[in-house]
């Protein structure tokens, strides 16, 4: 199954491709020394200025793949083969320091639960200005101004007030916006969103999705969107990568995948998301 060449990569010319993962395999070694294969020949690419969805159920390997891009996997992970090319550079060959320069400035990630992802003991303002202080060598004042701007960009109603607040004072939706703001400070070239709206109410989710689509349309933000919700995929993404058991099952444009999925697993996922066959 994994021998099929990745479709999205075929269609895109090499200059269009921002991120290309090829034949990526690996797994975790347990304390007792048992090796569990979790990724098997994962291959797909993310074209510039698109929103690419990475879809799969629990244990499909979508988050492990995303964490690999940022080199955030624990040491128990062992790579067997593959490469992750970001603008032609293999991220897997970078040392810690080189990776740190990429992380947070060129590639940023937003996690599912914003209130856990943010540091509870610092204000939002401090946490966001720290990012630009770290990556852009600006003064404290400049950093705070940038922070206010970026909070405004993610449509937080009163950005100056938000600067003084701690994560626990924010609602789930606002905290997610703040986390997104932190990711946008350095104007990254790739934004990775890992289930950014899971656990939020649908009305709030719709606002956040709109914001993500606007960032893409207006600023050309390339986004890798990890989700299990095919409804979100249908409404926000341009390309789709479907994963199951650590393998890529199908890749294609959003239209292809939603309207005429070829892989049996993709077909089942779509039917299940529509609850087809549930009523008599």
């Amino acid at each position, binding site marked *: 199954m994994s021998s099929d060449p990745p479709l999205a990569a075929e269609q895109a010319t090499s200059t269009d491709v921002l991120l290309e993962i090829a034949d990526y395999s690996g797994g975790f070694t347990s304390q007792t020394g048992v090796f569990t294969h979790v990724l098997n020949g994962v291959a797909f690419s993310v074209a510039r200025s698109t929103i690419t969805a990475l879809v799969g159920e629990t244990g499909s390997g979508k988050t492990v793949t995303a964490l690999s891009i940022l080199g955030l996997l624990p040491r128990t992970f062992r790579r067997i083969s593959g490469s992750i090319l970001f603008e032609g550079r293999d991220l897997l060959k970078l040392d810690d320091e080189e990776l740190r320069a990429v992380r947070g400035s060129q590639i940023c990630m937003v996690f599912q639960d914003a209130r856990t992802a943010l540091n509870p003991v610092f204000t939002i303002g401090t946490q966001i200005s720290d990012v630009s202080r770290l990556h852009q060598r600006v003064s404290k004042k400049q950093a705070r101004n940038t922070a206010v701007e970026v909070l405004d960009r993610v449509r937080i109603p009163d950005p100056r007030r938000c600067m003084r607040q701690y994560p626990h004072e924010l609602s789930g939706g606002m905290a997610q916006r703040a986390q997104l703001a932190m990711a946008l400070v350095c104007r990254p070239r790739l934004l990775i969103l890992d289930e950014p709206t899971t656990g939020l109410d*649908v009305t709030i989710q719709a606002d956040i999705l709109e914001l993500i689509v606007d960032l893409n349309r207006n600023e050309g933000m390339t986004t890798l969107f990890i989700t299990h919700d095919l409804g979100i995929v249908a409404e926000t993404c341009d390309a789709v990568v479907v994963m199951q058991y650590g393998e890529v099952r199908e890749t294609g444009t*959003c239209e292809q995948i939603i309207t005429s999925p070829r892989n049996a697993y993709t077909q089942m996922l779509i039917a299940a998301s529509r*609850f087809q066959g549930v009523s008599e």
Partner: protein
Amino acid sequence: MIETRRPILGVSGLHKTFRIRHSGIAKSLTAVQRVEFELYPGETVALVGESGSGKSTVARCIARLIDATSGEVVLGDLPLTHIRGRALSKVYEDLQMVFQDTHGALNPRMTVQATLEEPLRLRLHLSRNEREERVRRLLESVDLGPELLDRYPRQLSGGQRQRVCIARAFAVDPKVVLLDEPTASLDVSVRGQVLQLLRRIQKERNVAYLLITHDLALVRRVSERVLVMYLGSVVEQGTTAEIFNHPTHPYTRALLSSAPVVEYGRVKSRLRLTGEISSAVDLPRGCPLAPRCPLVQASCLDSFPPLLQVTPTHSVRCPVVLAGAGAGKDAIAPVREHSATDSTHGRGRR
């Protein structure tokens, strides 16, 4: 048609307020107010709303996991509101719950066998052999094999755990089962199977389900009627077709138009609410949606809007949208309901 049948569960004038301390000052949080509905044998009614809408509190009040501040809950002919002790435990032969968090719902130190045997031992007083036979059949009825009998919850997958929870709920012969987000923690592929299972059992046993969920696609598939809740009160209720084809209350419309649909190229026309859900602490007297509503008028802030009937099965708590829809106000009869003031059968403790 359903009017001729007798409801198996009746809820009227249900209120629940929690006393809380906010920055050291005693305040009251209105979790549920004026909730009123009936549940008939064999049907599924969905209670829909976002977090903080009070839908779980309604279920917990019905199951007496918490005590309602005021209001009546009647199961068959039996009023549940003041029942206690042994009589209350007897109620659970007819009323069961299935929860979202299957980890929390199962005792980690009890095997599947022990979990399923417990209700049989406590409620039905069967002999050991009879119990073992029943447990095996129960497990079969939720499509699980006998090899799982000696497993502990942590050795089961999420879907398997939820099946065990369902089996436990049906160990006795309940007439009403409260399903609190039964599929929210499951993967989509497993979700369908669990729903299928719940449907099958419902047909076999003519059990009524109160389905509490925020998943609108699920509601559309499995329920006959829908109650939409916002900040503790029902803002719209009707048949599933009425709610999905003619959503009328601004909140229902916002909710339905926000939910993502697995369809390519759908043009979304969202009804947008401003801001986020208000605090349920010291609710203002007007419409709870007023601060966020795009159709808000001065009258909305004055008094709590009544539930107005559109059809015999469809009612909406928004005079503004109904007046605007061209329906003459005279044509719309207010639905009789207990208000906070005339409902005097409170718990009266402390």
